[in-house]
């Protein structure tokens, strides 16, 4: 058995392993892979997501167990320190020796730290590893605690520098970008597009300083500023250096492999170095006198090295490497493909620029006007995939090439259809998946939907940029096979939630059967469409869940949360979390009387558990007599508006967060939505109410409230994003009315605001256009609809206990007053709990 040692467990080193073990003869080889970082390879391309969720696991390329399951020995936290080429052995920093037959160098690169005086000071970071990020987060947290308006600068306005700028924003520091060149992203953008990008980034709060050479870092022990010239100083509390990368070639140099003048291990088109048994792949490899800092060429190199080791010598690296990229930088689309900067001798450029909307599009067309040579897109890269494919496959372009980038007036696309692509068109360049492979996966029955295509072809698992195209191709292929693509909510309706919303509203339906009989597929409904229609009728007609209770979901049906043993929990509303001692005592007495387990909920309310169906109305009669009302903890509706105590008590408070939180909770109580909605109001930027973790969050600042939208906790935590700044109470309510109503109108069933907002074409910017600028001209309607719901609010528990017909359902037996005799409770600390499930 031959031994392969891979030095470097980064994305490309991992990809070598993944591709290797998928080969037929892989079992004749033993792979050992070394990584100097403490954890297995992770996705560095999406590193900035770590700031949103701090979830290192989610970034992993594969869990540590994957390596073992595939017979690969993974050794992390141990650097390879020496290579002995004559003996064919390596020695690690822990002085262990390993022999190899083939050595694969995948050591990648390290951030370049320019020799500026003072870079060693505390508060200066580089941006490369999860450890770097953890260091930044800890430092930023410390800074913010001492200094609420702390500033952080990023040195370097390239692609990675702007990613780091996003990280600074996410950490809640005032962001500054300092670039030596006179423009941002000098390697990808021309001057005009760079200017458009700069304007756009400034509009979202980044401070950009161009043509700045940093002379020294100021401060004693820790950084306090950057000095550019004699009287040119920028005061900052933290600095992230992102001034380019340098290949990690020190090992290669020490063992005498050929390296380039400016670093990198020289390789030929088989990825072989100057030593026949040593290969180099990824950002360490100097191929065609170039270092390729993108993941797609790195993966191609891994594939070539795999095939070469296995003796398939005909597999070689392509001569020309496609450096096209599409990214979302701080929410702004930026893409360049082919030859972005083309000399006038080779062709003509067509440029569309609209600074009012921060849009720039440039395409370079051959002199004969027949082919596309490259281009740049800033602000809107939705056409990138098609343009990129046209370029790659040298497809014919329209006679008037300007159509490719001009905004379509009639909505028709100048591109034709994804199905027009040739079969060999590479749709996913990270994983080298062609259109033909995607279509074949569906045609031969391996996959029947997008998820299936992704799992069997791996398309879209790299940078994810091709996902929209994979989706379009999948749907088009399914359609061509006569398989209808399901957009309906379930087997009973071919309509989407949004379609049903419109229909119910226009036709004025008031019962489930009317909707089903007129627009359904002839069936009788199910647990998916019934609660959905119930929720829509609540949104449109302000119905409570009492009206047609048999179509309500489990909890709504009995206006309580069903728990593990079929008993219920009861949560009265405590707006903003403010409660009087008398009300607290009342809750305690009621809980005692009915022997209920009592706990403070995650939404800081009081939850009373263990009520039987028969007890629910009795408990509610007492709660209502003490002035409580339903908390709607059981509904897909507003739960709580969590507040900190704000300026009423807190010495730091900037505004009355409790008063405003109560007002908002009382305004939106009871409205039914596609999913639950939570709010938060913080009285200052210390953010004790965790408002940015809510669907809507407010933070009091100098001059008003900052309004954030689209956050949540749960399985995929999201921070809410800034919708508007320094607005007064009235404007907050106006924007929130519009935002929530727009969400209620257009989201999919059970889609939280975060997922809805993210999947809207145009994302948060589109939300701003609709909510703030009223682009669709519906703002007034949205406000009116919301006001109607607010006016028609009625506590559904009060409604139920006063109506004998509605009360009939709160009996365990229809023919007996007995309770469920199957219930068994066991003691739990000083309270009780249901007997554990067997």
């Amino acid at each position, binding site marked *: 058995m031959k031994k392969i040692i891979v030095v470097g467990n980064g994305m490309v080193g991992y990809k070598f392993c993944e591709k290797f073990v998928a080969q037929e003869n892989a079992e004749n080889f033993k792979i050992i892979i070394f990584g100097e970082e403490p954890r297995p390879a992770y996705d560095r391309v999406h590193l900035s997501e770590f700031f949103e969720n701090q979830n290192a696991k989610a970034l992993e390329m594969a869990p540590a167990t994957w390596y073992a399951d595939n017979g690969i020995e993974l050794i992390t936290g141990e650097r390879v320190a020496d290579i002995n080429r004559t003996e064919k052995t390596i020695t690690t920093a822990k002085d262990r020796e390993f022999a190899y037959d083939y050595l694969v160098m995948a050591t990648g690169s390290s951030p370049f730290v320019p020799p500026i005086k003072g870079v060693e000071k505390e508060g200066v970071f580089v941006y490369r590893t999860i450890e770097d990020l953890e260091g930044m987060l800890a430092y930023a947290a410390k800074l913010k605690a001492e200094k609420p308006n702390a500033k952080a600068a990023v040195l370097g306005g390239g692609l990675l520098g702007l990613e780091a700028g996003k990280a600074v924003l996410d950490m809640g520091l005032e962001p500054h970008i300092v670039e030596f060149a006179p423009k941002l992203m000098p390697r990808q953008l021309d001057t005009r597009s760079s200017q458009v990008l700069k304007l756009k980034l400034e509009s979202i709060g980044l401070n950009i300083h161009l043509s700045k050479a940093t002379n020294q870092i100021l401060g004693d022990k820790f950084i306090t500023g950057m000095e550019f010239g004699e009287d040119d100083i920028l005061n900052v509390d933290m600095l992230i250096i992102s001034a380019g990368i340098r290949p990690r070639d020190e090992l290669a140099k020490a063992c005498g492999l050929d390296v380039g003048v400016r670093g990198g291990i020289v390789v030929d088109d088989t990825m072989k170095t100057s030593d026949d048994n040593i290969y180099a792949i990824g950002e360490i490899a100097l191929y065609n006198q170039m270092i390729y800092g993108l993941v797609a060429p790195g993966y191609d190199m891994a594939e070539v090295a795999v095939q070469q080791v296995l003796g398939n010598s005909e597999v070689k690296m392509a001569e020309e490497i496609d450096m096209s990229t599409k990214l979302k930088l701080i929410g702004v689309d930026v893409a360049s493909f082919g030859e972005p900067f083309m000399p006038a001798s080779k062709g003509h450029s067509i440029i569309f620029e609209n600074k009012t909307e921060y849009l720039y599009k440039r395409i370079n067309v051959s002199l004969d006007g027949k082919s596309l040579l490259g281009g740049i897109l800033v602000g809107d890269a939705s056409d990138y995939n098609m343009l990129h494919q046209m370029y790659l496959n040298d497809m014919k372009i329209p006679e008037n090439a300007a159509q490719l980038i001009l905004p379509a007036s009639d909505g028709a696309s100048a591109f034709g259809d994804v199905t027009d692509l040739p079969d060999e068109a590479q749709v996913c360049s990270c994983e080298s998946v062609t259109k033909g492979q995607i279509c074949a996966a569906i045609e031969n029955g391996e996959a029947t939907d997008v998820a299936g295509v992704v799992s069997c072809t791996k398309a879209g698992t790299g940078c994810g940029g091709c996902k929209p195209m994979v989706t379009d191709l999948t749907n088009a292929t399914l359609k061509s096979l006569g398989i209808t693509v399901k957009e309906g909510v379930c*087997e*009973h309706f071919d309509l989407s939630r949004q379609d049903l919303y419109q229909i119910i509203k226009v036709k004025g339906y008031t019962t489930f*059967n009317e909707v089903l009989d007129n627009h359904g597929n002839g*069936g*009788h*409904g*199910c*647990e998916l*469409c*019934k*609660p959905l229609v119930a929720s829509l009728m609540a949104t449109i007609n302000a119905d409570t869940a009492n009206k047609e*209770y*048999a*179509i309500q*979901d*489990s909890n709504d*049906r*009995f206006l309580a949360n*069903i728990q*593990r*043993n*079929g008993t219920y929990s009861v949560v009265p509303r405590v707006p903003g979390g403010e409660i009087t001692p008398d009300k607290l005592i009342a809750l305690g007495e009621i809980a005692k009387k009915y022997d209920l387990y009592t706990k403070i909920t995650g939404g800081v309310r009081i939850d009373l558990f263990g009520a039987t*169906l028969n007890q629910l109305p009795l408990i509610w009669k007492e709660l209502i007599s003490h002035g409580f009302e339903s908390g709607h903890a059981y509904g897909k509706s507003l739960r709580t508006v969590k507040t900190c105590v704000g300026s009423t008590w807190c010495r730091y408070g900037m505004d009355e967060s409790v008063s405003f939180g109560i007002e908002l909770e009382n305004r939106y109580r009871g409205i039914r939505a596609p999913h639950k909605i939570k709010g938060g109001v913080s009285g200052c930027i210390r953010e004790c109410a965790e408002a940015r973790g809510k669907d809507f969050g407010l933070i009091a600042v100098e001059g008003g409230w900052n309004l954030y939208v689209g956050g949540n906790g749960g399985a995929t935590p999201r921070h809410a994003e800034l919708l508007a700044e320094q607005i007064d109470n009235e404007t907050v309510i106006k924007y929130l009315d519009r935002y929530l109503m727009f969400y209620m109108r257009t989201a999919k069933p059970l889609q939280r605001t975060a997922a809805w907002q993210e999947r809207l074409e145009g994302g948060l910017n589109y939300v701003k256009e609709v909510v703030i600028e009223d682009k669709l001209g519906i703002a007034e309607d949205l406000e009116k609809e919301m006001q109607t719901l607010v006016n028609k609010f009625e506590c559904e528990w009060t409604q139920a206990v006063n109506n004998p017909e509605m009360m*009939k*359902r709160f*009996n*365990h*037996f*229809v*023919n*007996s007053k*007995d309770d*469920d005799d*199957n219930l068994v409770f066991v003691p739990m600390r000083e309270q009780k709990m249901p007997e554990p*499930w*067997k």
Partner: protein
Amino acid sequence: METILDTYKATKIEAVNVWFKAASVNDFPADGGACVKYKNKQIAVFNFTRLGKWYACQNVCPHKMEMVLSRGMIGDDKGIPKVACPLHKKTFSLESGENLNGDLGAIATYPVKVEGNDVYIGFSE
């Protein structure tokens, strides 16, 4: 827990010896259910108005052995009338009792008849 399930045996109409008068038609919601107590048994009874039919089955869901099926939503799965458990949405055919979205054992179903305004459930004992 086996003993709870042993209490419920699918009963065909031919095997009915006792027609138990459970409640009146108006005690059940349209296209919904309620629970009936018969000796030591809890029976879920559904008024499937859209089909003009009545169904009865054990109230206990075989998934976690809780007495909850009568509180579930009803509907159909490709034409088969079904009930969805309110706890984890396990669905069961109201005709055969079969678990439609998993491999749990079938639930016991019972015949129902309506005479005048009264709903009767058929038991073998």
